[in-house]
């Protein structure tokens, strides 16, 4: 029973790891997808995703700088005019570049921040799976004749006689 458990546990671990990864991805993927209700919340959400260009590490939502206030005003006007969050962000990116975004974009070199962990995770799982498969299916090594086969005295004598006879029969 214990031996069986020991043999099954690596496979079980892989399954558990896969399940936990999938659950984590689902949780991370679905978090924060609830749409804010009002315009003010949308403005706040968009402003929170933009760097204040004249500040150090402050979002447009948090900065008291006059330029950030003007950006909030512009966001509010665009939200009111019916522009989507992506369109508004694109407008600021066109002027300031992607560095104006608080979170790196999902494409280009910065996109590696999103894709690399997933790639590493998949590769890790693949390597783990291959190693586990190799360990689980490792063939038992054949016993070496000289090491583990023990002969009785009479058997040994019989072998010696047979070898001697073979040598006599050899030509030359």
């Amino acid at each position: 029973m214990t031996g069986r458990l020991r043999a099954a546990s690596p496979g079980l671990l892989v399954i558990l790891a896969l399940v936990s990864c999938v659950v984590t991805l689902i949780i991370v993927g679905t978090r924060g997808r609830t749409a804010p209700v009002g315009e003010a919340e949308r403005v706040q959400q968009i402003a929170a995703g933009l760097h204040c260009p004249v500040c150090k590490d402050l979002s447009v939502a948090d900065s008291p700088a006059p330029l950030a206030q003007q950006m909030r005003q512009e966001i509010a006007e665009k939200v009111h005019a019916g522009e989507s969050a992506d369109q508004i962000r694109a407008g600021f990116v066109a002027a300031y570049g992607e560095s104006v975004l608080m979170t790196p974009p999902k494409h280009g070199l910065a996109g590696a921040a999103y894709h690399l962990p997933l790639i590493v995770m998949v590769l890790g799982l693949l390597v783990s799976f291959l190693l586990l498969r190799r360990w689980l299916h490792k063939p038992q090594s054949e016993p070496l004749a000289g090491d583990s086969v023990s002969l009785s005295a009479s058997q040994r004598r019989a072998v010696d006689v047979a070898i001697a006879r073979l040598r006599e029969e050899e030509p030359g």
Partner: protein
Amino acid sequence: MRRIGLRRIVLLATVVAAVLAVVILLATGLGRDPSAPASPLVGRAAPGFTLAQLDGPQFTLSTLRGQVVVINFWASWCAECHTEQSALNGTWQQFRDSGVVVVGVNFQDTSTDARDYVRTAGVSYPVVEDSDSRAALAYGVRGIPETFIVDRSGRIVDRVIGPVDAAKLAGQINSLLSAGSR
């Protein structure tokens, strides 16, 4: 000669590629000033604006198509803007009859302070008031002074962060003028 296995070659190549990737990333990243990111506007059409001049009439950028335009964002409270003032005044005097326009865009300032400064600093080129910072936002201004050089076709060819250098600016303008006359 010792034979190297394929697996070892693949492993070695992977390690070399990973090290190379980190080196390239560091080399490109460390050679750049993080406080002065490249403007995505360079090479693109200059955002248009219509703003009131300090002395009254409206000023529309698109009316200057066909001329080289130097757009300078400044404020009276900005010490570095004072440093570059003589360079801008000199550029205006030198090129105003050659199809070049210098435009001052007053940024986050009061009209009174801006007018006082323009008078005392001897500014004679057009100065407009960007009272709600819309032009500054359209140009991706991060701080002042910031200067954009626009060619005859209305395309931004350079952005200068900090005070402009008179000789360098003159060189850029001359090359734009000669390119346009060819």
